[in-house]
């Protein structure tokens, strides 16, 4: 009876993860160190914003991650709903806290950058508001996922929410172009090429890569942990079934 072979094979996934993990972790440490060094020592102060521009090297990558992780969750949710792949559910579940963390960082570091530049910790402009909504979407996703007795139902409900909430992502991306706001417009991800100096662009990009690698490391460990939990649940059930 080979019926169970047709499901995802978690053992193969675990084996692959264990092989990849040391390499990704090493790369994360390297790129993080290089990014930090460059953002403090090789990049110049901004001619308008002075040294405070150094907050950019964590603020902008955090904001990228906030959107990137949410997009990953939305893609995983589509896979979960259409192909019912169990690993997609685990990936979405494992990603949400990481995404929420980075969204919080984007908001907090933005606030710390905004205070000296704009004179206010917070302004209610389109970009900030839409990122705040994103943060609440992450919280709602996590709450919904854990709100059901049956994990399966939580996964599916959260998947629908993630897909519905995805409308927010283009709004965040283009809010600075559509509305004239205090927040500065995009300077890296532009159709006609980045508009900032290479001495600032490089540390920014390297930090961006470092954050993404960090996400992959934490994500893989979390999925691994979830898989072990699933195995534990199976053992516990077996004990109950035996007593039946």
């Amino acid at each position, binding site marked *: 009876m080979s*019926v*169970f072979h047709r499901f995802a094979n978690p053992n193969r996934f675990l084996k692959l993860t264990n092989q990849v993990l040391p390499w990704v972790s090493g790369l994360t440490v390297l790129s993080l160190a290089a990014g930090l060094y460059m953002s403090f020592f090789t990049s110049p102060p901004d001619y308008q914003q002075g040294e405070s521009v150094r907050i950019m090297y964590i603020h902008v990558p955090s904001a990228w991650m906030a959107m990137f992780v949410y997009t990953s969750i939305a893609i995983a949710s589509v896979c979960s709903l259409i192909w019912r792949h169990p690993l997609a559910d685990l990936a979405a579940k494992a990603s949400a806290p990481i995404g929420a963390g980075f969204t919080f960082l984007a908001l907090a570091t933005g606030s710390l950058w905004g205070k000296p530049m704009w004179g206010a910790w917070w302004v209610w402009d389109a970009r900030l508001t839409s990122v705040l909504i994103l943060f609440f979407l992450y919280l709602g996703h996590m709450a919904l996922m854990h709100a059901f007795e049956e994990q399966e139902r939580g996964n599916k409900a959260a998947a629908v929410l993630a897909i519905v909430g995805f409308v927010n992502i283009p709004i965040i991306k283009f809010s600075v172009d559509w509305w004239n706001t205090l927040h500065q417009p995009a300077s890296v991800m532009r159709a006609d090429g980045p508009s900032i100096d290479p001495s600032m662009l490089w540390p920014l990009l390297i930090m961006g890569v470092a954050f993404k690698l960090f996400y992959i490391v934490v994500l893989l460990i979390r999925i691994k942990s979830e898989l072990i939990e699933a195995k534990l649940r199976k053992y516990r059930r077996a004990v109950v*079934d035996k007593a039946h």
Partner: protein
Amino acid sequence: MGSSLFQGEDLTCIRGGRTVFLGLNFNLAQGQALILEGPNGSGKSSLIRMLSGLVRPKLGKLVWQDQDATREPEIFQRHIHYIGHRNAIKPVLTVLENLAYWSGKKKDDPSLDDALDHFRMLPLKHTPANLLSSGQSRRLTLSRLLASERSVWLLDEPSVGLDVASVALLEDVIKTHRSKGGAIIFATHSPINVENPNKLNLQDYSPLYNKKLLAVENEEDSWI
């Protein structure tokens, strides 16, 4: 016995990470009655819900009149009537309004009166449903079977809350339904007498009771 109406091949149901039953086959022909047996947790309700199309089988095939309907339960949903544990009765509506809504018929349709009469509910026709006893509610629910005129009935514990006389009414209705070529699948703990029924014991397909299946399940690497 008529030709094959509804078939299941190698059906597997997994709920909350637990295999409820696996490798289950059944065949329902016109005029047949299939009784699902088995202790608590062997998956009787799950199977009935799967056959109604509410739950999709994880593995296996559902065939309706030689047509593969595994992916499109809509094919057979038009021909079945499912009655679950809950009665789907709105307390603020009258007995007749409740019946009319789910059978999709006008309130003055004579077949509604007939259906109510079969289950001795006609005198309560204009009573708000919140005044009904649990047995009366169940009888109202069962009268939908007659009003909706579907060929296959899927009944999950239809006799819950019914007294002996009402169970006899149900047996009567089932008999007429079968004689007209209808088929029926039901799960029950209390005896309902039907002529030459086919029986399916879910215990044989449940890893919880059939330890041979448990071994098969445990051997596999997949645990999610």
